[in-house]
């Protein structure tokens, strides 16, 4: 423990070693490969997620090349284009964002920020990673089977997803996708149990729920949501697998394909949509809530000011989590459902804007008159706020049934969800990596490369996605392989597409610089020390950096205050760590 005068150590009962017996690795394999240490698992999760994310990034380049220069790259035919779309979407949403926020940051930060030695069920935690890796490998195997991966779109709507007209529809592609999802969900459940129960039971002395950093609140709430929402995707995947392999008719209606009547009959494609979006909408917030939490901590630390409205922030996280379970059908306005349902779901959707807006106000008010340090994590946090507001505002358009109907299935929707759930969370992920990299490795990421990375990524993302809104308003449909000469694709729109493609390639190149920075700084980065950002939360107070297995050495930290004591009037420094008690009584005792 740091900063506690040694004279009072005797009066504090020695924080005994956790009753969870720590697993002690005996060999190189159990230390770095089959590790049960949450920090190693976090790094494994993150590296796997980033690797498969790179595949998705390359797929987006290929799609953009086709849209910017149709017909020029002959190897991108219509089938491949749909396969690229599908894999890009699925990988980014589930295998990158969900896995990185919960499996990566969750594993690294939950035990450290709460003052625990490890997760409560380390063995299940390890299994969680290996199932995730298996899921990723099964997914990637889709590229190598005859017929290629599925091209059904990331929503995998039946009946088209399992018909022969869809790429990968009657071959291995769709099977591998469904099996991979099932494996991912089983693996995630094992990890998710750990994240939830560690928050419930693993906190250090004095770490009450209302003293937890907002990062933990975000990850905790998102995990609870994911545990309840992912079963819907599981059920949908299993039932679709039955329809495909065993010939049942859960989702498949009577259908004539290529002149032959299929065996199926009576199934309900809408049923699939309900199940899928019952998972799919909470998924948006499963990604967003950890981002909300992390960005709150980044802003508070780098503006040297306590978070504005902490309680309100916690309540907003919980309320957003709860509301997100009753809005799913706003993805189905054009599915022909009862208009009264549309009214109900539009109302709940728009109500979510209230707690979300509270959060945005509180971030801005935290910045207000703060001692803002424009460090790279802060730049990304600011980038997030702006992007999230932009994406959120177009969400208000799409949440209204009458506005959504003409905009549905246009590039406007693509622009909206990429801003709000693509660019915005990715901004937070970058900010978080720049922020916590010094704790993970002991070295800072290079500043100049970081700034180039930020500005190219931030400005580039806007140059990519702002024009897409305009294309959408023109009527340019999404998911089309090629628009040709049409009213929705005038020459000016085509020039715009070329521009977007060039920007996409540029932003992609900036990510290569980021990856180089990650590797280069391991060796050549500036020595960081234990607490380079002078932050209050517990992970920065570990006795050694990077923290060893067990995190805390002999004694667990004791928590005396909340996580946001920055610039406290009268304090000798502009931050007071969470494990530092109020010295008043001690100094008074000494004086007497």
């Amino acid at each position, binding site marked *: 423990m740091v900063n506690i005068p040694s004279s009072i150590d005797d009066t504090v009962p020695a924080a005994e070693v956790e009753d969870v017996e720590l697993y002690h690795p005996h060999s190189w394999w159990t230390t770095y490969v089959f590790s049960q240490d949450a920090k190693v698992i976090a790094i494994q999760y993150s590296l796997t997620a980033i690797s498969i994310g790179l595949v998705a990034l390359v797929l987006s380049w290929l799609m953009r090349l086709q849209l910017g220069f149709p017909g020029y790259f002959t190897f991108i035919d219509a089938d491949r284009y749909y396969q690229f779309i599908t894999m890009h979407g699925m990988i980014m949403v589930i295998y990158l964002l969900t896995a990185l926020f919960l499996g990566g940051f969750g594993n690294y930060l939950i035990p450290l920020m709460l003052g625990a030695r490890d997760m409560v069920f380390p063995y299940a935690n390890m299994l969680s990673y290996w199932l995730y890796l298996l899921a990723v490998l099964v997914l990637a195997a889709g590229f190598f089977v005859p017929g290629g991966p599925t091209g059904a779109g990331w929503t995998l709507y039946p009946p088209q997803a399992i018909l022969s007209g869809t790429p990968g529809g009657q071959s291995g592609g769709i099977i591998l996708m469904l099996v991979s999802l099932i494996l991912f969900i089983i693996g995630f459940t094992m990890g998710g149990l750990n994240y939830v129960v560690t928050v419930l039971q693993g906190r250090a002395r004095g770490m009450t729920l209302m003293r937890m950093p907002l990062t933990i609140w975000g990850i905790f709430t998102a995990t609870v949501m994911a545990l309840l929402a992912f079963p819907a995707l599981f059920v949908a995947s299993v039932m679709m697998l039955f329809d495909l392999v065993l010939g049942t*008719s859960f989702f498949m209606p009577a259908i004539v394909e290529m002149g032959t009547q299929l065996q199926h009959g009576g199934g309900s494609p809408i049923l699939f949509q309900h199940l899928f979006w019952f998972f799919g909408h909470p998924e948006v917030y499963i990604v967003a809530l950890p981002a909300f939490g992390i960005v709150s901590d980044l802003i508070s630390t780098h503006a040297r000011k306590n978070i504005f409205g902490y*309680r309100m922030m916690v309540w907003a996280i919980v309320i957003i989590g709860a509301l997100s379970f009753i809005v799913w059908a706003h993805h189905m306005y054009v599915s022909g459902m009862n208009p009264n349902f549309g009214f109900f779901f539009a109302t709940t959707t728009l109500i979510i804007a209230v707690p979300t807006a509270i959060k945005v106000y509180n971030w801005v008010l935290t910045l207000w008159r703060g001692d803002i340090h424009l460090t790279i994590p802060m730049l990304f946090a600011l980038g997030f706020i702006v992007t999230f507001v932009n994406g959120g505002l177009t969400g208000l358009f799409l949440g209204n049934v009458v506005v959504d109907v003409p905009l549905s299935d246009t590039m406007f929707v693509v622009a909206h969800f990429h801003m709000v759930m693509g660019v915005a969370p990715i901004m937070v992920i970058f900010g978080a990596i720049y922020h916590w990299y010094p704790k993970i490795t002991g070295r800072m990421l290079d500043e100049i490369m970081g700034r180039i990375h930020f500005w190219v990524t931030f400005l580039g993302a806007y140059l990519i996605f702002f024009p897409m809104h305009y294309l959408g308003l023109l009527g340019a449909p999404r998911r089309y392989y090629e628009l040709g000469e049409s009213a929705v694709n005038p020459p000016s729109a085509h020039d715009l597409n070329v521009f977007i493609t060039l920007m996409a390639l540029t932003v992609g190149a900036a990510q290569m610089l980021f990856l180089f920075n990650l590797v280069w700084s391991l060796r050549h980065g500036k020595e960081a020390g234990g607490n380079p950002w002078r932050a209050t939360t517990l992970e920065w107070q570990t006795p050694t950096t990077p923290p060893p297995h067990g995190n805390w050495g002999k004694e667990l930290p004791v928590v005396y205050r909340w996580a946001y004591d920055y610039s406290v009037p009268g304090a000798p420094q502009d931050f007071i760590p969470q494990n530092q008690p109020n010295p008043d009584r001690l100094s008074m005792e000494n004086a007497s």
Partner: protein
Amino acid sequence: MSAMLIFLAGIAVVITWWMAQQRLTSKPWLEVGNAGDAPRYDRSPIATAKIGLGVFLAVVGALFTLFISAYFMRMGVEDWWAIPIPGLLWVNTGVLMVSSIALQRAKTEAHKNQTGVMKIALLAGLVTGVVFLVGQVFAWRELTRAGYVLADNPANSFFYLITGMHGLHILGGLVALSRTTLKAWEGARPDRVRLSVELCAMYWHFMLLVWLILFALFAGWANDFVDICRQLLT
């Protein structure tokens, strides 16, 4: 999705009840501990493993509720005709009940440190659990022989799918239960296996409850409930 919304409402009640006890209205910025204070652990006295199992059972509950939701929604289509309930399922239900009672007994005996009875009760629970699974397979065979095959009708498909999923969960439980039983028969003291026995009993009671709901569903007793839900939604 009405069944799932009801389930979620239940979960929401539990979460709200829990959160109400967590002093969410406290003002953490005013509450700084003094040097020399010894703040307490702020966690539940219930064993961590039990809480873990509780959370897991909520996930399993969500899974089966979603299957049931899908069942109700698919039921509305005309091509549906209910599957007959083989008499064997009544026997299986009884066997699973016996299994659950046996494990409850094992739990009580573990608390009383009665190793002998506990060991026998555990074994009885294990054997009846296996018998239940075998019985389910025989019920499947009976139905298939009578011509009710998987892909013929959505009711059949759901029956095989959901009972299969339940069977898989029982199978997973049997793995844990056999490890516990083995530990008890190898002579571990009752206080060493007490927690494992409690966890097994908890899981078993839950799977019994799930089975009873599924049984009511397949037997058609839940149809009135479905009608009410449908009226609520239209």
